[in-house]
């Protein structure tokens, strides 16, 4: 049983026609597909805050997590042709295409010597011109430079690409990467699982079953991972709920997901630039519904680089308990038109969380507390 909602909120939620869902949540029962669709279509953003905030505070109270990391995007050359992407360049010869030499990529980490970061986050394009050893050497090089750093690297899409390109099983790919220093998998590349939307968005990359399978194998090998959903492009509400339920089903089996990160669609410099970006309304409701549907995931993260400071702060009342890190050199969202600053210092992140009325906690990748600010 959950703590009862405050009377004001209970009446508000019930007046919004969500009384039966509220009662199921009160009783600790799981929500189903139809509940998810109804939550995604309620016009009452306030009712969603009341419900999602209770779930958030039941798990974490006011605690709000952040970490300090550096992003390395070693190459933007990519064989995939996802229409929402502003980052990838198809060919090596493209004027804005780049591939870092190993030493340059490792140099990104070396340059931060002495800075108290805990994580390196690596996501790349699917580059047809690189040898398998490039990735292993990249991990080894970073580990040699900063052995204490946790490396969270390669989305399931990349793992799948490596397996196909270099002729290995998912397990073999992951075992070799772990051997070289891999610590966990980021959650990218999930986009929207449903075949209708996926065919339109990213027909030529790994399908839902492949993405899920990579994470299953990773969890079985003892890796933790994150998961994501790209929302606000061409998907339907039903496809969002379907996506959440597929993630919930794998989590029931493995328990290996740490964090769910809804990724907001940005429209500049890509082929969907005629679509409007999701507004705060759709963004906050997606966070809230995610918190309510994913009852077996610990954390919901709002990537502040994607949202801007104001919306990231507001999201903490719509189910979010993590606002990611002090990112060094983020490229993917900024090439899609994100206007947020590239980095926020640790003190600024702490202030941002405190100003939102919450308690900041610095974590490492696996959610060990580094420091309660």
């Amino acid at each position, binding site marked *: 049983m959950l703590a009862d909602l405050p009377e004001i*909120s209970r009446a508000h939620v019930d007046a919004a026609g969500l009384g039966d869902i509220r009662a199921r949540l009160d009783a600790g029962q799981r929500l189903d597909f139809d509940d998810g669709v109804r939550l995604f279509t309620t016009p009452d953003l306030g009712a969603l805050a009341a419900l999602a905030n209770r779930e958030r*505070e039941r798990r974490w109270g006011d605690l709000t997590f952040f970490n300090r990391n550096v992003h390395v995007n070693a190459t933007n050359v990519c064989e995939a042709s996802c229409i929402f992407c502003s980052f990838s360049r198809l060919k090596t010869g493209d004027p804005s295409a780049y591939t870092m030499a190993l030493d340059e990529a490792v140099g990104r980490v070396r340059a931060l010597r002495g800075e108290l970061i805990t994580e390196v986050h690596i996501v790349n394009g699917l580059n047809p011109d690189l040898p398998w050893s490039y990735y292993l050497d990249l991990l080894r090089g970073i580990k040699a430079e900063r052995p204490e750093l946790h490396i969270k690297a390669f989305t399931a899409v990349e793992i799948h690409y490596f397996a196909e390109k270099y002729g290995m099983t998912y397990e073999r790919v992951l075992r070799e990467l772990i051997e070289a220093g891999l610590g966990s998998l980021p959650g990218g590349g999930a986009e929207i699982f449903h075949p209708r939307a996926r065919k339109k968005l990213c027909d030529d990359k790994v399908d839902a079953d492949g993405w899920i399978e990579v994470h299953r194998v990773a969890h079985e090998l003892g890796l933790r991972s994150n998961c994501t959903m790209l929302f606000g492009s061409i998907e339907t509400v039903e496809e969002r709920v379907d996506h959440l339920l597929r993630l919930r089903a794998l989590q029931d089996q493995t328990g290996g997901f740490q964090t769910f990160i809804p990724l907001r669609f940005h429209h500049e410099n890509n082929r969907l630039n005629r679509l409007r970006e999701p507004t*705060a*309304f759709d963004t906050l409701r997606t966070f809230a519904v995610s918190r309510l549907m994913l009852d077996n995931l610990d954390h919901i993260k709002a990537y502040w680089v994607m949202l801007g400071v104001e919306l990231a702060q507001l999201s903490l009342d719509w189910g979010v308990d993590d606002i990611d890190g002090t990112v060094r050199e983020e490229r993917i969202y900024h090439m899609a038109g994100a206007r947020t600053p590239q980095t926020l210092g640790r003190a600024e992140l702490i202030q941002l969380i405190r*100003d939102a009325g919450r308690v900041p906690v610095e974590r490492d990748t696996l959610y060990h507390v580094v420091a309660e600010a």
Partner: protein
Amino acid sequence: MNPKIRVACVGYTNAWPLTRHLDPAQFDVRACVPSAAARLLNQGEADVGLVPVASVFDGGATWRVVPGYCIGSDGDVDSVLLVGERPLAEWDEVVLDGESRTSVVLAQILLRGPLARPDLPVRAVDAGTGAFHAQGRVGAVVIGDAARNLPDRLTTRIDLGRVWKDWTGLPFVFAVWAGRPDLPAAAITGLREAAARGLPERASAPAADRDYLLRAIRYELDDRALMGLRRFVALAQAAGLFGPGELSLYPPPAATRSREAAEGLLASTRRGERISMDGALCLLEDTPTPELCAAADDVRRLRLPGRDVTYLMAGNVRLGEVAARGAALAAQGAVAAVLQAGVPEASTLSSCEAAIRALKGDHGLSVTGLGVDELAGLALAAGVAPEVALRRLVDAGLDGFGGTPTRAGAASRPQAQMLTRLAGEAGLRGPATLTLGLGESRAERVAHLCAVRDAQDEALAAGRPGYSAFSVWTGLAGVPGRDDSAQAWLRLVALARLVLDNVPHITAWWPTVGLGAAQTALFAGADDLGPILLDEDALGAPGRSWTTDPEEVEHHIRVAGFRPVRRDLDWTRLVPVAAAPDGRYARI
């Protein structure tokens, strides 16, 4: 078990909202006349007392004052009067009823000041006998319940609360909770909670007292009241009527307020009951954002049913670019020009008059933008009284009032009140605003809201139009740690909807927090998105999302489930002219 806190307090009618809910398990209450309460405190026979302000200084100011509540007034107090059978000018003596030294000192200060009888001899008489002594050419100070039940022969009745207010522009504080310096925090909390529970019950007081308790007595010891109190103490000390020393307050027990109290307050607010200043502060400190927003949303739906959300097309116009900007704004679909007077010179007032005529006559724009500070500056530079400057601008056609200063507390300045009143008398409406992040405390934010509410009550009672809307500005300071985040902004928007039960519209003013936050505020009591400022160099901070595109604004309103409605400065709704190919809008 801790010994009970010994409380000495007056048994007057005006004290019961503060005392009736004192928990007998915590407090041992003794009722007495004010001077006796002070004596018990001085002799160590009471730990805390509801005592006249004068008593605090009689003991060398060693007592401290409980923050939050007092017995005060903000205009007519009804129960502290100078009375006589003949007009004041004919008196040759005043007797001072010894029952309350504070009222006696107030009478002496006012006789020397605004009442202009500095040499009138005074004589002390026994407590409670003032009205008896007031005969012929002898006047008297009478206080308390006696002042509210005077014999008919006393035809001169001068309300000292009113005289003080007209003289200083400030509330007057007659009595405070004061106690020994080491009073436990739990006792302070207990006193405040008793007040928070007692004050709402004024509405159910006997009919004879209800108006007095609700209107004449002001129970909030807020920043304005403290300002009045400090002014009075300084005057009394300068006149040698008070001993030396400074006013010292106990720290407010912020952490001890309870969730339950906040929930009770929200429920009563939703029922349409007016929330006290301390209640509002309690909500701001203790209520989670979702709950605060839900309550504000409920109140907004009750008061403004329907799904309409308004916005205004407007642009800033500086003097000197009136012709070009006026034409450009009209072409962009603006209906209002916000006139920027800049740093005023002697000729600026005439330039403003000309600009208003041109913007209206040549371009069909409504004109607003000149607020209290601008008016005062224009008048000063032109060498005329502010009311003269205002009259000239109104005659030139000024449509809206720029409003009161936005810094917490500034709306209570006498000049701001005066100009706001004059603008209202001229039929001008404008918004009231609060800017977050200028170093103000949460208590000061709440006090600002309550001052706006008081001013609105006064305006509406006097038949003036009053404030059209309230908005909260934030993110202008650029200083970290100023509690001016998007969350702080959203919470203040919601609180404004709950507190300002007499202001029709709450504007989500978004240039600095972004359209997304404003869209969220539509679920927290806001019903208006304010102006889309059609300026290239609008004041959105770098990196903020800023749009001058009405399509984008309407999209945000629509996807949130509301209906966008364009409005004019005076809140007239505008509709697209179906036949006009240039997308013109017309007043309904």
